């Protein structure tokens, strides 16, 4: 008699749709752009006047 747990069987991962992947990519691009914009806005405080 053999006992097999759920981890021994084949795993099935649901493939994500291209729309979902595109949406996620857009989110991370937005995060990158937002980071750059915030840094540019803060740059007058960060950078010395004659850098």
């Amino acid at each position, binding site marked *: 008699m053999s006992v097999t747990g759920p981890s021994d069987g084949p795993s099935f991962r649901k493939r994500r749709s291209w729309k979902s992947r595109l949406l996620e990519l857009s989110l*991370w691009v937005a*995060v990158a752009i937002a980071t750059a914009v915030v840094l540019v806005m803060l740059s007058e405080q960060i950078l010395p006047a004659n850098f």
Partner: protein
Amino acid sequence: MRVLRTLGKFLISVGFGVLLFVAWTLWGTGLSTDRAQAALELDFGRQDPIDARELSREGVQSIKVDDSFQPGPGEAVFRMVIPGIEVREMVVEGVDVESLRKGPGHYPDCRRGFEKPLCTDEEEIWPGEVGRVIISGHRTTYGAPFYDIDRLRRGDEIRLETKWGDFTYEVTGSEIVPPNSTDIATPVSDKPELVLTTCNPRFSAAERLIVSAELSDASL
């Protein structure tokens, strides 16, 4: 596991954002300076000639620019040409943040609305006059007009083309001073001199690089 993966993606995105910021600072800022320089060239071309009278005081030949010449912050005042390091820039009035975004700035006096410490209590000096013409410029951002200023050597030419004449200065030396050093920011001198100041080393504001020059030729 999923949280870690999301955090990793977030940090990578922030990293790309920092890279975008660095690229903007080093190169993107130059785009707005290029546009400002083009506009300043046009403005300068439209300006009327300005009167200047020749002086000879204690054996020193110089000029005195008409007192009616009172440019405001960020206005084009003269053109600076340094053939040795391929610099050709319109110089603006003032060394405040906004003015220096347009190009190198001429150190003004405080009597016309400029605020300390970015101005001097002494009378400001114009090219050709006895005293020290002081010009500050960016080293690595906003077009980096003074990027190669450390390559200037004794005898190199710096030409200032104004609405009252053309003046050629010859480099006499350079020095590195602390960033808070104010000695060099005084326009008082007994001969016609020029001082260029910028940050040192490149990409840092830890020190100031000062290049000094003396008037060698003038044509009104």
